[in-house]
Protein backbone atom coordinates (compact mmCIF):
# COMPACT_ATOMS: atom_id res chain seq x y z
CA UNK A 1 0.00 0.00 0.00
CA UNK A 2 2.85 2.35 0.80
CA UNK A 3 4.13 2.79 -2.71
CA UNK A 4 6.16 5.84 -3.41
CA UNK A 5 4.53 7.37 -6.41
CA UNK A 6 5.71 10.01 -8.78
CA UNK A 7 9.27 9.57 -7.72
CA UNK A 8 10.04 12.73 -9.62
CA UNK A 9 13.50 13.79 -8.61
CA UNK A 10 15.08 17.04 -9.62
CA UNK A 11 18.25 16.01 -11.43
CA UNK A 12 20.23 17.98 -13.92
CA UNK A 13 20.33 15.80 -17.03
CA UNK A 14 19.63 16.54 -20.67
CA UNK A 15 16.11 15.13 -20.35
CA UNK A 16 15.31 16.96 -17.12
CA UNK A 17 16.29 20.25 -18.72
CA UNK A 18 13.83 19.80 -21.59
CA UNK A 19 10.50 21.57 -21.28
CA UNK A 20 7.51 19.50 -20.16
CA UNK A 21 5.81 20.31 -23.44
CA UNK A 22 8.68 18.78 -25.42
CA UNK A 23 8.65 15.64 -23.34
CA UNK A 24 4.91 15.27 -23.77
CA UNK A 25 5.09 15.74 -27.55
CA UNK A 26 8.01 13.33 -27.86
CA UNK A 27 6.31 10.77 -25.64
CA UNK A 28 3.11 10.94 -27.68
CA UNK A 29 4.97 10.79 -31.01
CA UNK A 30 7.07 7.78 -30.05
CA UNK A 31 4.24 5.82 -28.43
CA UNK A 32 1.99 6.53 -31.42
CA UNK A 33 4.76 5.33 -33.70
CA UNK A 34 5.00 2.04 -31.83
CA UNK A 35 1.22 1.77 -31.66
CA UNK A 36 0.77 2.22 -35.41
CA UNK A 37 3.39 -0.21 -36.62
CA UNK A 38 3.91 -3.95 -36.55
CA UNK A 39 7.38 -3.73 -38.05
CA UNK A 40 9.72 -5.38 -35.57
CA UNK A 41 12.75 -3.51 -36.92
CA UNK A 42 11.27 -0.12 -36.04
CA UNK A 43 9.94 -1.38 -32.72
CA UNK A 44 13.35 -2.69 -31.69
CA UNK A 45 14.88 0.61 -32.84
CA UNK A 46 12.55 2.59 -30.61
CA UNK A 47 13.24 0.17 -27.77
CA UNK A 48 17.00 0.70 -28.03
CA UNK A 49 16.52 4.47 -28.22
CA UNK A 50 14.29 4.48 -25.16
CA UNK A 51 16.77 2.38 -23.20
CA UNK A 52 19.53 4.86 -24.08
CA UNK A 53 17.32 7.73 -22.93
CA UNK A 54 16.62 5.74 -19.79
CA UNK A 55 20.35 5.82 -19.03
CA UNK A 56 20.64 9.48 -19.93
CA UNK A 57 17.83 10.37 -17.52
CA UNK A 58 19.72 8.51 -14.76
CA UNK A 59 16.76 6.38 -13.76
CA UNK A 60 17.88 3.40 -11.72
CA UNK A 61 16.42 -0.03 -12.37
CA UNK A 62 15.51 -0.41 -8.69
CA UNK A 63 13.06 2.50 -9.10
CA UNK A 64 11.04 0.60 -11.69
CA UNK A 65 11.57 -2.99 -10.59
CA UNK A 66 8.08 -3.56 -9.16
CA UNK A 67 6.45 -1.97 -12.18
CA UNK A 68 8.59 -4.05 -14.49
CA UNK A 69 7.50 -7.31 -12.83
CA UNK A 70 3.82 -6.30 -13.05
CA UNK A 71 4.12 -5.50 -16.72
CA UNK A 72 5.99 -8.67 -17.48
CA UNK A 73 3.25 -10.76 -15.85
CA UNK A 74 0.67 -8.83 -17.83
CA UNK A 75 2.45 -9.26 -21.16
CA UNK A 76 3.14 -12.94 -20.54
CA UNK A 77 -0.56 -13.55 -19.74
CA UNK A 78 -1.44 -11.78 -22.96
CA UNK A 79 1.12 -13.93 -24.80
CA UNK A 80 -0.41 -17.18 -23.52
CA UNK A 81 -4.02 -16.01 -24.02
CA UNK A 82 -3.30 -14.95 -27.59
CA UNK A 83 -2.01 -18.42 -28.37
CA UNK A 84 -4.97 -20.13 -26.68
CA UNK A 85 -7.55 -18.01 -28.47
CA UNK A 86 -6.04 -17.79 -31.93
CA UNK A 87 -3.13 -20.15 -32.53
CA UNK A 88 -3.21 -19.54 -36.28
CA UNK A 89 -3.46 -15.75 -36.31
CA UNK A 90 0.13 -15.45 -37.49
CA UNK A 91 -0.56 -17.72 -40.46
CA UNK A 92 -3.60 -15.61 -41.35
CA UNK A 93 -1.54 -12.41 -41.28
CA UNK A 94 1.58 -13.50 -43.10
CA UNK A 95 -0.03 -15.96 -45.50
CA UNK A 96 2.59 -18.68 -45.23
CA UNK A 97 2.97 -21.61 -42.84
CA UNK A 98 6.20 -22.94 -41.41
CA UNK A 99 5.31 -25.59 -38.85
CA UNK A 100 7.77 -25.96 -35.99
CA UNK A 101 6.08 -28.65 -33.92
CA UNK A 102 2.56 -29.87 -33.19
CA UNK A 103 0.94 -29.95 -29.75
CA UNK A 104 -2.57 -30.90 -30.86
CA UNK A 105 -4.23 -30.42 -34.23
CA UNK A 106 -5.55 -26.96 -33.26
CA UNK A 107 -2.46 -25.89 -31.38
CA UNK A 108 0.23 -26.09 -33.99
CA UNK A 109 3.22 -23.90 -33.28
CA UNK A 110 4.20 -22.06 -36.44
CA UNK A 111 7.05 -19.70 -37.11
CA UNK A 112 4.53 -17.06 -38.22
CA UNK A 113 2.59 -17.23 -34.97
CA UNK A 114 5.82 -16.99 -32.99
CA UNK A 115 6.94 -14.02 -35.04
CA UNK A 116 3.60 -12.23 -34.61
CA UNK A 117 3.63 -12.82 -30.87
CA UNK A 118 7.25 -11.76 -30.49
CA UNK A 119 6.50 -8.57 -32.39
CA UNK A 120 3.58 -7.86 -30.12
CA UNK A 121 5.67 -8.69 -27.06
CA UNK A 122 8.38 -6.21 -28.00
CA UNK A 123 5.76 -3.67 -29.00
CA UNK A 124 4.31 -3.62 -25.50
CA UNK A 125 7.69 -3.80 -23.84
CA UNK A 126 9.19 -0.90 -25.79
CA UNK A 127 6.71 1.74 -24.61
CA UNK A 128 7.31 1.11 -20.90
CA UNK A 129 10.68 2.88 -20.63
CA UNK A 130 9.15 5.83 -22.50
CA UNK A 131 6.36 6.15 -19.96
CA UNK A 132 8.83 5.84 -17.08
CA UNK A 133 11.12 8.50 -18.53
CA UNK A 134 8.22 10.88 -19.02
CA UNK A 135 6.85 10.43 -15.53
CA UNK A 136 10.17 10.36 -13.69
CA UNK A 137 11.54 13.50 -15.28
CA UNK A 138 8.51 15.76 -15.57
CA UNK A 139 7.47 17.99 -12.74
CA UNK A 140 3.78 17.17 -12.03
CA UNK A 141 2.72 20.80 -12.16
CA UNK A 142 4.53 21.29 -15.46
CA UNK A 143 2.60 18.34 -16.87
CA UNK A 144 -0.73 20.19 -16.74
CA UNK A 145 0.76 23.31 -18.26
CA UNK A 146 2.21 21.35 -21.16
CA UNK A 147 -1.15 19.73 -21.87
CA UNK A 148 -2.67 23.19 -21.97
CA UNK A 149 0.03 24.22 -24.41
CA UNK A 150 -0.90 21.53 -26.92
CA UNK A 151 -4.40 22.97 -26.97
CA UNK A 152 -6.39 21.22 -24.28
CA UNK A 153 -8.92 23.38 -22.43
CA UNK A 154 -7.30 24.82 -19.31
CA UNK A 155 -10.24 23.67 -17.22
CA UNK A 156 -9.57 20.04 -18.07
CA UNK A 157 -5.89 20.66 -17.27
CA UNK A 158 -6.81 22.08 -13.88
CA UNK A 159 -8.85 18.96 -13.18
CA UNK A 160 -5.82 16.86 -14.07
CA UNK A 161 -3.46 18.83 -11.88
CA UNK A 162 -5.96 18.60 -9.01
CA UNK A 163 -6.00 14.82 -9.47
CA UNK A 164 -2.22 14.69 -9.25
CA UNK A 165 -2.18 17.02 -6.28
CA UNK A 166 -4.85 15.21 -4.24
CA UNK A 167 -3.97 11.63 -5.09
CA UNK A 168 -1.67 11.18 -2.05
CA UNK A 169 -4.26 12.76 0.27
CA UNK A 170 -7.10 10.54 -0.94
CA UNK A 171 -4.82 7.53 -0.75
CA UNK A 172 -4.00 8.33 2.88
CA UNK A 173 -7.69 8.86 3.73
CA UNK A 174 -8.63 5.58 2.11
CA UNK A 175 -5.98 3.73 4.07
CA UNK A 176 -7.07 5.19 7.41
CA UNK A 177 -10.78 4.58 6.83
CA UNK A 178 -10.20 1.06 5.58
CA UNK A 179 -8.18 0.14 8.68
CA UNK A 180 -10.74 1.73 11.00
CA UNK A 181 -13.61 -0.21 9.40
CA UNK A 182 -11.71 -3.47 9.42
CA UNK A 183 -10.97 -2.97 13.11
CA UNK A 184 -14.75 -2.82 13.60
CA UNK A 185 -15.07 -6.21 11.94
CA UNK A 186 -15.90 -5.34 8.34
CA UNK A 187 -14.79 -8.41 6.40
CA UNK A 188 -12.95 -7.71 3.14
CA UNK A 189 -11.18 -11.01 2.47
CA UNK A 190 -12.33 -14.02 0.45
CA UNK A 191 -14.11 -15.42 3.53
CA UNK A 192 -17.15 -13.28 2.80
CA UNK A 193 -19.32 -13.82 -0.30
CA UNK A 194 -18.97 -11.48 -3.25
CA UNK A 195 -22.16 -9.56 -2.51
CA UNK A 196 -21.16 -9.10 1.16
CA UNK A 197 -17.75 -7.86 0.06
CA UNK A 198 -19.31 -5.35 -2.33
CA UNK A 199 -21.60 -4.13 0.45
CA UNK A 200 -18.70 -3.91 2.90
CA UNK A 201 -16.74 -1.96 0.32
CA UNK A 202 -19.55 0.56 0.27
CA UNK A 203 -19.12 0.95 4.03
CA UNK A 204 -15.54 2.05 3.44
CA UNK A 205 -16.47 4.19 0.45
CA UNK A 206 -19.21 6.18 2.16
CA UNK A 207 -17.00 8.04 4.66
CA UNK A 208 -14.32 8.42 1.98
CA UNK A 209 -16.72 9.95 -0.52
CA UNK A 210 -18.37 12.29 1.93
CA UNK A 211 -15.04 13.61 3.12
CA UNK A 212 -14.05 14.07 -0.52
CA UNK A 213 -17.28 15.93 -1.29
CA UNK A 214 -16.61 18.25 1.66
CA UNK A 215 -13.18 18.88 0.24
CA UNK A 216 -14.69 19.64 -3.18
CA UNK A 217 -16.85 22.30 -1.57
CA UNK A 218 -13.87 23.83 0.23
CA UNK A 219 -11.57 23.93 -2.79
CA UNK A 220 -14.32 25.25 -5.06
CA UNK A 221 -14.95 28.15 -2.71
CA UNK A 222 -11.24 28.89 -2.44
CA UNK A 223 -10.85 28.90 -6.21
CA UNK A 224 -13.93 30.96 -6.87
CA UNK A 225 -12.90 33.55 -4.28
CA UNK A 226 -9.66 33.97 -6.22
CA UNK A 227 -11.55 34.54 -9.44
CA UNK A 228 -10.85 31.21 -11.11
CA UNK A 229 -12.53 30.69 -14.47
CA UNK A 230 -13.27 34.35 -15.16
CA UNK A 231 -11.27 34.54 -18.37
CA UNK A 232 -11.00 32.42 -21.48
CA UNK A 233 -7.25 31.91 -21.11
CA UNK A 234 -4.83 31.30 -18.30
CA UNK A 235 -1.09 31.42 -17.91
CA UNK A 236 0.95 28.82 -16.05
CA UNK A 237 3.57 29.53 -13.42
CA UNK A 238 5.58 26.43 -14.27
CA UNK A 239 5.71 26.93 -18.04
CA UNK A 240 9.20 26.77 -19.56
CA UNK A 241 9.72 28.36 -22.98
CA UNK A 242 11.17 26.06 -25.67
CA UNK A 243 14.91 26.20 -26.30
CA UNK A 244 17.23 24.84 -29.00
CA UNK A 245 17.41 21.33 -27.48
CA UNK A 246 13.62 21.18 -27.29
CA UNK A 247 13.20 21.83 -31.01
CA UNK A 248 15.96 19.32 -31.73
CA UNK A 249 14.26 16.57 -29.68
CA UNK A 250 10.86 17.23 -31.23
CA UNK A 251 12.52 17.15 -34.66
CA UNK A 252 14.16 13.77 -34.02
CA UNK A 253 10.93 12.22 -32.73
CA UNK A 254 8.94 13.67 -35.62
CA UNK A 255 11.48 12.24 -38.05
CA UNK A 256 11.12 8.77 -36.50
CA UNK A 257 7.36 9.07 -36.73
CA UNK A 258 7.38 10.20 -40.36
CA UNK A 259 9.92 7.53 -41.29
CA UNK A 260 7.64 4.86 -39.80
CA UNK A 261 4.66 6.21 -41.71
CA UNK A 262 6.76 6.23 -44.90
CA UNK A 263 7.74 2.58 -44.31
CA UNK A 264 4.16 1.65 -43.53
CA UNK A 265 2.58 3.18 -46.63
CA UNK A 266 5.31 3.06 -49.26
CA UNK A 267 7.79 0.31 -48.42
CA UNK A 268 6.04 -2.58 -46.61
CA UNK A 269 2.62 -1.28 -47.76
CA UNK A 270 0.83 -2.99 -44.87
CA UNK A 271 0.62 -2.85 -41.11
CA UNK A 272 2.82 -5.93 -40.82
CA UNK A 273 6.43 -6.38 -41.83
CA UNK A 274 6.56 -9.74 -43.57
CA UNK A 275 9.92 -11.56 -43.62
CA UNK A 276 8.34 -14.76 -44.95
CA UNK A 277 7.88 -13.75 -48.57
Amino acid sequence: MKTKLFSYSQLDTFIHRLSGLTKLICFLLLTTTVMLTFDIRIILGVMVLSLILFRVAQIRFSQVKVMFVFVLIFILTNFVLTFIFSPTYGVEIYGTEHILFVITERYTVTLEQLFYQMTKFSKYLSVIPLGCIFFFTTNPSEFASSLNNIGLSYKACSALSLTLRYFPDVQGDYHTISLAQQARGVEMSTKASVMTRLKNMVRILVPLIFSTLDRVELITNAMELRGYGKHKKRTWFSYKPLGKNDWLSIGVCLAIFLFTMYMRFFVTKSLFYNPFI
Partner: protein
Amino acid sequence: MKKPLFNTKTIVATGLGGALFMVLFMFVKVPSPVPETNLQIAYGISSFFAMLFGPIAGGLIAFIGHALSDFLSYGSPWWSWVFASGAAGAISGIAYLTAKKDIEQGEFDLVQFLIWNIVANAVAWIIVAPVLDIVIYAEPVSLVFTQGGIAFVMNAICSCVVGGLLCSIYAKTKTKEGSLTKK
Protein backbone atom coordinates in the same frame (compact mmCIF):
# COMPACT_ATOMS: atom_id res chain seq x y z
CA MET B 1 -33.88 24.17 -13.89
CA LYS B 2 -30.77 24.19 -16.05
CA LYS B 3 -27.98 22.01 -14.74
CA PRO B 4 -24.42 23.30 -15.00
CA LEU B 5 -22.11 21.16 -17.16
CA PHE B 6 -18.66 22.52 -16.46
CA ASN B 7 -18.31 25.18 -13.79
CA THR B 8 -15.61 25.51 -11.14
CA LYS B 9 -17.29 22.99 -8.89
CA THR B 10 -17.43 20.42 -11.68
CA ILE B 11 -13.72 20.94 -12.33
CA VAL B 12 -12.80 20.40 -8.70
CA ALA B 13 -15.14 17.42 -8.41
CA THR B 14 -13.54 15.97 -11.55
CA GLY B 15 -10.07 16.44 -10.10
CA LEU B 16 -10.83 14.85 -6.76
CA GLY B 17 -13.06 12.20 -8.31
CA GLY B 18 -10.17 11.28 -10.58
CA ALA B 19 -7.89 10.90 -7.57
CA LEU B 20 -10.49 8.71 -5.85
CA PHE B 21 -10.89 6.62 -9.00
CA MET B 22 -7.13 6.18 -9.22
CA VAL B 23 -6.78 5.05 -5.61
CA LEU B 24 -9.56 2.50 -5.96
CA PHE B 25 -8.40 1.38 -9.38
CA MET B 26 -4.90 0.67 -8.13
CA PHE B 27 -5.44 -0.71 -4.65
CA VAL B 28 -8.97 -2.01 -4.32
CA LYS B 29 -9.67 -5.16 -6.23
CA VAL B 30 -12.43 -7.33 -4.88
CA PRO B 31 -11.78 -10.87 -6.12
CA SER B 32 -14.73 -12.13 -8.16
CA PRO B 33 -16.09 -15.67 -8.58
CA VAL B 34 -14.40 -15.96 -12.00
CA PRO B 35 -10.72 -16.78 -11.37
CA GLU B 36 -8.04 -14.22 -12.30
CA THR B 37 -10.50 -11.37 -12.65
CA ASN B 38 -11.37 -8.61 -10.25
CA LEU B 39 -14.36 -6.42 -9.68
CA GLN B 40 -13.19 -2.87 -10.27
CA ILE B 41 -14.96 -0.86 -7.60
CA ALA B 42 -13.61 2.30 -9.25
CA TYR B 43 -16.34 2.14 -11.92
CA GLY B 44 -18.90 2.59 -9.16
CA ILE B 45 -17.17 5.88 -8.29
CA SER B 46 -17.22 7.21 -11.84
CA SER B 47 -20.94 6.39 -12.18
CA PHE B 48 -21.67 8.08 -8.86
CA PHE B 49 -19.79 11.26 -9.80
CA ALA B 50 -21.33 11.16 -13.28
CA MET B 51 -24.80 11.09 -11.69
CA LEU B 52 -23.91 14.05 -9.46
CA PHE B 53 -21.89 16.22 -11.81
CA GLY B 54 -22.75 15.16 -15.36
CA PRO B 55 -21.21 13.44 -18.38
CA ILE B 56 -18.13 15.67 -18.79
CA ALA B 57 -17.09 15.09 -15.19
CA GLY B 58 -17.85 11.36 -15.40
CA GLY B 59 -15.93 10.89 -18.62
CA LEU B 60 -12.89 12.87 -17.48
CA ILE B 61 -12.79 11.14 -14.08
CA ALA B 62 -12.66 7.69 -15.64
CA PHE B 63 -10.29 8.77 -18.40
CA ILE B 64 -7.79 10.65 -16.22
CA GLY B 65 -8.01 8.14 -13.38
CA HIS B 66 -7.50 5.13 -15.62
CA ALA B 67 -4.72 6.72 -17.70
CA LEU B 68 -2.72 7.88 -14.66
CA SER B 69 -3.07 4.60 -12.78
CA ASP B 70 -1.91 2.74 -15.91
CA PHE B 71 1.04 5.12 -16.11
CA LEU B 72 1.98 4.33 -12.54
CA SER B 73 1.48 0.61 -12.61
CA TYR B 74 2.44 -0.28 -16.20
CA GLY B 75 4.57 2.64 -17.37
CA SER B 76 2.32 3.39 -20.29
CA PRO B 77 -1.46 3.45 -20.63
CA TRP B 78 -3.32 0.75 -22.55
CA TRP B 79 -5.09 3.41 -24.62
CA SER B 80 -7.95 1.34 -25.99
CA TRP B 81 -9.21 0.49 -22.51
CA VAL B 82 -8.54 3.98 -21.19
CA PHE B 83 -10.78 5.40 -23.92
CA ALA B 84 -13.40 2.75 -23.16
CA SER B 85 -13.35 3.79 -19.49
CA GLY B 86 -13.82 7.41 -20.49
CA ALA B 87 -16.72 6.47 -22.76
CA ALA B 88 -18.37 4.46 -19.97
CA GLY B 89 -18.06 7.40 -17.56
CA ALA B 90 -19.38 9.91 -20.06
CA ILE B 91 -22.36 7.86 -21.23
CA SER B 92 -23.41 6.97 -17.69
CA GLY B 93 -23.45 10.72 -17.03
CA ILE B 94 -26.37 11.14 -19.42
CA ALA B 95 -28.49 9.97 -16.49
CA TYR B 96 -27.62 13.32 -14.87
CA LEU B 97 -29.41 15.09 -17.71
CA THR B 98 -32.36 12.75 -18.15
CA ALA B 99 -33.10 12.08 -14.46
CA LYS B 100 -36.65 13.10 -13.65
CA LYS B 101 -35.92 13.60 -9.96
CA ASP B 102 -33.27 15.87 -8.50
CA ILE B 103 -30.72 14.02 -6.40
CA GLU B 104 -29.79 17.27 -4.60
CA GLN B 105 -33.41 17.34 -3.36
CA GLY B 106 -33.09 13.89 -1.85
CA GLU B 107 -34.77 11.94 -4.63
CA PHE B 108 -32.73 9.48 -6.64
CA ASP B 109 -33.95 8.37 -10.07
CA LEU B 110 -32.80 4.74 -9.94
CA VAL B 111 -34.41 3.69 -13.23
CA GLN B 112 -32.59 6.28 -15.35
CA PHE B 113 -29.37 5.54 -13.48
CA LEU B 114 -29.54 1.81 -14.19
CA ILE B 115 -30.56 2.21 -17.85
CA TRP B 116 -27.70 4.58 -18.69
CA ASN B 117 -25.14 2.60 -16.73
CA ILE B 118 -25.95 -0.62 -18.53
CA VAL B 119 -25.95 1.17 -21.90
CA ALA B 120 -22.64 2.86 -21.03
CA ASN B 121 -20.92 -0.36 -20.05
CA ALA B 122 -22.26 -2.24 -23.05
CA VAL B 123 -21.04 0.43 -25.48
CA ALA B 124 -17.68 0.78 -23.77
CA TRP B 125 -16.69 -2.83 -23.23
CA ILE B 126 -18.45 -4.67 -26.04
CA ILE B 127 -17.88 -2.06 -28.77
CA VAL B 128 -15.25 0.59 -27.95
CA ALA B 129 -12.61 -1.49 -26.14
CA PRO B 130 -12.48 -4.51 -28.50
CA VAL B 131 -12.65 -2.41 -31.66
CA LEU B 132 -9.83 -0.13 -30.49
CA ASP B 133 -7.85 -3.19 -29.40
CA ILE B 134 -8.09 -4.52 -32.94
CA VAL B 135 -7.41 -1.18 -34.62
CA ILE B 136 -4.54 -0.02 -32.41
CA TYR B 137 -2.95 -3.22 -31.19
CA ALA B 138 -4.08 -5.78 -33.82
CA GLU B 139 -5.14 -8.22 -31.13
CA PRO B 140 -6.95 -11.40 -32.23
CA VAL B 141 -10.70 -10.84 -32.62
CA SER B 142 -11.97 -13.75 -30.52
CA LEU B 143 -9.68 -12.85 -27.60
CA VAL B 144 -10.72 -9.20 -27.37
CA PHE B 145 -14.44 -9.90 -27.61
CA THR B 146 -14.22 -12.53 -24.87
CA GLN B 147 -12.29 -10.10 -22.66
CA GLY B 148 -14.78 -7.36 -23.53
CA GLY B 149 -17.73 -9.55 -22.62
CA ILE B 150 -16.27 -10.45 -19.23
CA ALA B 151 -15.37 -6.81 -18.58
CA PHE B 152 -18.92 -5.75 -19.47
CA VAL B 153 -20.52 -8.09 -16.92
CA MET B 154 -18.02 -7.19 -14.16
CA ASN B 155 -18.06 -3.46 -14.67
CA ALA B 156 -21.81 -3.24 -15.16
CA ILE B 157 -22.27 -5.01 -11.80
CA CYS B 158 -19.83 -2.59 -10.12
CA SER B 159 -21.36 0.53 -11.66
CA CYS B 160 -24.92 -0.47 -10.85
CA VAL B 161 -24.48 -1.99 -7.39
CA VAL B 162 -21.75 0.24 -5.92
CA GLY B 163 -22.77 3.38 -7.82
CA GLY B 164 -26.46 2.81 -7.08
CA LEU B 165 -25.88 2.25 -3.36
CA LEU B 166 -23.69 5.36 -3.13
CA CYS B 167 -26.26 7.50 -4.93
CA SER B 168 -29.12 6.35 -2.71
CA ILE B 169 -27.04 6.96 0.43
CA TYR B 170 -26.10 10.41 -0.88
CA ALA B 171 -29.73 11.21 -1.65
CA LYS B 172 -30.70 10.34 1.95
CA THR B 173 -28.36 13.03 3.28
CA LYS B 174 -30.11 15.72 1.25
CA THR B 175 -33.33 17.31 2.39
CA LYS B 176 -36.12 18.38 0.12
CA GLU B 177 -36.79 22.07 -0.34
CA GLY B 178 -39.79 23.17 1.72
CA SER B 179 -39.94 19.93 3.66
CA LEU B 180 -40.42 21.80 6.93
CA THR B 181 -43.94 22.84 7.84
CA LYS B 182 -45.02 25.41 10.38
CA LYS B 183 -47.35 24.17 13.10
